[in-house]
C-alpha cells in the first residue's frame, strides 16, 4: 500500500520534472524584455525603447447612427444623472449596471459615451441617459483603446498571449469589429535590441493625434484612412532615450510628448508621427536631488504637460511644450518613492487630479495649491499592491475612476467592478 502523502509528493515532482528545466540562457535579458512590455496596474509606465503613449485628448465627435445586431442590448440605468457634470462637485458612485466583473478594463471616451472593455465584453455608458448598452466584444483582450472621432482602435493580445500584438477597429454604426492586423515594431527599436512588447501598456498605450493613432510602445503609426500601420520616426540612437521608459507620453494638443522627471531630454512627435524633436529635460534646480525617481506619471492639462514623479519629496513640474520652459509645481503631499506612486493621475479641463500614495484622499491642483477632493465613496482594498486594477480617465467635465479585480480579497470569488466619478468644483 503506497502512502498517500508520498504518492502525492512523488507524483507532483514527477509530473513537473521537465517543466522550466530549459530556462533562458540569459534570464536577465528576458526580464528586461518582460519588464518593458508589462502592463501598468496602478501607475502609468510606458514601454518600449523610445516612446510611449497616452492621453486621450480632443476626443470629440459623436457616434452616429444606431447600433444593431445580436450583441446590442439596451439596458436602462437609474435614469437620474444628465451628464457627469450635472452630478455636482465631488465624488459619486457610478452605477455599473450590467457590466460584469472584470480582471482589468480599458476605457475610452467618445465625446458623449464612456466605452469600457475587458474580460471578453464591451459596454457603453451614456451619462445623459444613465443607460448602459452592451456592445460587440473586442476580438482579443484589449490593452489599449483610443477613440479617433469616428471609430475605436484597440490593441491587445490573443487569448493565448504571446507576440505579436493584435489590433482591430470598432465601427460604432454597425457595432462591428474589424481586424487591422498585427502591430509592427519600428526598425529603430529592433535595431536597439527590442523585438517589441507583445502588448501595450494599460490604457495609456494608444494616442489619437487628430490625424493618426500613435502606438509609441511599438513605434507604430496607424492611418485610419487606410487602416495600415507604418513606422514611427525614431532617433537613430534610440537607446540613449531609454530613460523615457519610466513615464507615459501625452498628447498636448499639438505634439505627442514624452518626458521624464529628470534632466534627460524628452521627445515630441508630430501629429503624423513622421518627425520628432527633443524637448528640454527638467532643470536640475527643479528636480532637486539627482536621479529623483524612476516613476513618473504625466498628463496634459490646458496645453501643458504635468509631471508627477513618485518621490518622497513630492516635487512636480509643468512643461510648456511651446517654449520648452519648465515650472515647478507645489509639492504633492503624501507621495513616496515607491512603485505605483502616484497611484493615479488624470486631468479634466485645467484641473489635475492625483491619488497620493499614503492612502490619503485624492488631490486636485487649483489656486497654486493642492486641495483635497474629499474621500472617495469606496476605495477597493489594495491587496498585495496589484490585486486590483485602476484606471482614471478624464472625460467631459469629470474624471472616471474605474476599478476592477478578480482578487479583491485574495479569494476565489466573483469578479469585481466599481466605478466612481469626480466632478471638479466650480471656479
Amino acid at each position: 500500500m503506497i502512502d498517500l502523502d508520498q504518492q502525492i509528493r512523488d507524483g507532483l515532482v514527477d509530473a513537473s520534472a521537465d517543466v522550466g528545466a530549459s530556462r533562458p540562457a540569459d534570464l536577465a535579458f528576458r526580464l528586461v524584455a518582460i519588464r518593458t512590455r508589462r502592463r501598468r496596474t496602478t501607475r502609468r509606465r510606458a514601454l518600449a525603447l523610445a516612446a510611449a503613449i497616452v492621453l486621450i485628448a480632443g476626443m470629440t465627435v459623436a457616434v452616429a447612427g444606431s447600433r444593431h445586431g445580436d450583441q446590442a442590448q439596451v439596458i436602462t440605468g437609474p435614469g437620474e444623472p444628465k451628464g457627469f457634470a450635472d452630478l455636482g462637485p465631488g465624488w459619486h458612485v457610478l452605477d455599473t449596471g450590467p457590466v460584469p466583473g472584470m480582471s482589468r478594463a480599458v476605457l475610452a471616451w467618445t465625446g458623449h459615451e464612456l466605452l469600457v472593455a475587458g474580460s471578453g465584453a464591451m459596454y457603453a455608458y451614456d451619462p445623459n441617459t444613465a443607460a448602459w448598452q452592451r456592445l460587440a466584444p473586442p476580438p482579443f483582450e484589449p490593452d489599449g483603446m483610443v477613440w479617433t472621432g469616428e471609430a475605436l482602435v484597440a490593441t491587445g493580445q490573443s487569448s493565448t498571449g504571446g507576440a505579436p500584438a493584435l489590433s482591430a477597429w470598432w465601427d460604432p454604426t454597425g457595432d462591428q469589429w474589424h481586424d487591422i492586423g498585427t502591430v509592427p515594431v519600428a526598425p529603430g527599436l529592433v535595431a536597439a535590441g527590442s523585438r517589441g512588447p507583445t502588448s501595450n501598456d494599460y490604457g495609456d498605450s494608444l494616442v489619437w493625434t487628430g490625424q493618426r493613432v500613435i502606438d509609441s510602445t511599438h513605434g507604430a503609426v496607424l492611418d485610419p484612412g487606410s487602416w495600415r500601420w507604418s513606422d514611427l520616426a525614431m532617433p537613430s540612437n534610440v537607446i540613449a532615450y531609454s530613460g523615457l521608459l519610466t513615464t507615459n507620453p501625452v498628447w498636448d494638443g499639438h505634439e505627442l510628448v514624452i518626458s521624464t522627471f529628470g534632466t534627460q531630454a524628452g521627445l515630441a512627435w508630430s501629429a503624423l508621427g513622421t518627425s520628432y524633436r527633443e524637448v528640454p529635460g527638467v532643470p536640475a534646480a527643479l528636480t532637486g536631488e539627482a536621479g529623483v525617481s524612476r516613476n513618473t506619471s504625466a498628463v496634459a492639462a490646458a496645453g501643458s504637460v504635468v509631471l508627477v514623479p513618485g518621490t518622497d519629496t513630492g516635487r512636480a513640474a509643468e512643461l510648456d511644450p511651446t517654449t520648452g520652459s519648465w515650472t515647478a509645481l507645489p509639492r504633492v503631499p503624501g507621495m513616496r518613492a515607491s512603485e505605483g506612486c502616484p497611484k493615479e493621475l488624470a486631468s479634466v479641463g485645467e484641473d489635475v487630479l492625483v491619488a497620493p500614495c499614503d492612502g490619503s484622499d485624492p488631490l486636485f491642483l487649483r489656486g497654486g495649491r493642492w486641495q483635497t477632493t474629499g474621500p472617495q465613496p469606496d476605495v477597493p482594498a489594495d491587496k498585495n499592491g496589484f490585486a486590483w486594477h485602476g484606471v482614471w480617465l478624464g472625460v467631459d467635465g469629470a474624471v472616471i475612476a474605474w476599478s476592477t479585480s478578480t482578487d479583491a480579497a485574495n479569494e476565489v470569488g466573483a469578479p469585481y467592478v466599481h466605478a466612481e466619478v469626480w466632478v471638479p468644483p466650480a471656479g
Partner: protein
Amino acid sequence: MGAPVDAESFAREAADLYTRLCRVAYLLGGDRGLAEECAQEALARAWQRVDRGATLDSLEAWTTTVALNWCRSQLRRRGAEARAVAVVAQRAEPTTDDDRSAGLSTEVRDAVVALPFRQREVVVLHYLLGYDVAAIAAVAGISTGAVKNALFHARASLAEQLGRARAGDEVENER
C-alpha cells in the same frame, strides 16, 4: 536574502527560482506556456521592486505570492481552467505497463488540477515545495485555519480520486 544590488546578481538568484515557479504554476494551471509566463512575471515584478531600491525579506516568498495571484488571475482571464480540465480529460487515457511510472504522476497531476484553486495551491505548496502550514498561510495570504481546512479537503479528494484511478488501473490490467 538581502536585496540584490544589480541586475546581474538578481538574475543569478532569480534563475534559481525560475524552475520552481514554473513547476508550481504548471501544476496550478496545467499549461506550460502559462507556467513560464507566470514565473517570468513574478520575477519581473520582483526585479522592478529591487531595481527601484526596495528590499524584499524573502525573494522566494515574495515571488511565490505574486506567482499564485498572477496565475489565478490569468486562469480566470483566459478561461484556462476550462482548458486545463479539457487537457486533463484528453490525457485521461489508459496507460500501458511500459509507461506505468509516467501514469502514476499523470494521475496525481490530473487529480490535483481537478481540485478547486485554493486547494490546488495549498497542495502544490505543501507537497511540491515542502511548505508548512504557516508558510503556506503567509504566501497565500490566508489564515492557518484556512490552510488546514483546504489541505484536509484536498487530501480527502485526492485519496478518493487516486483510489478510483488505481482501481481502474487494476481492472485494466486484469483484462
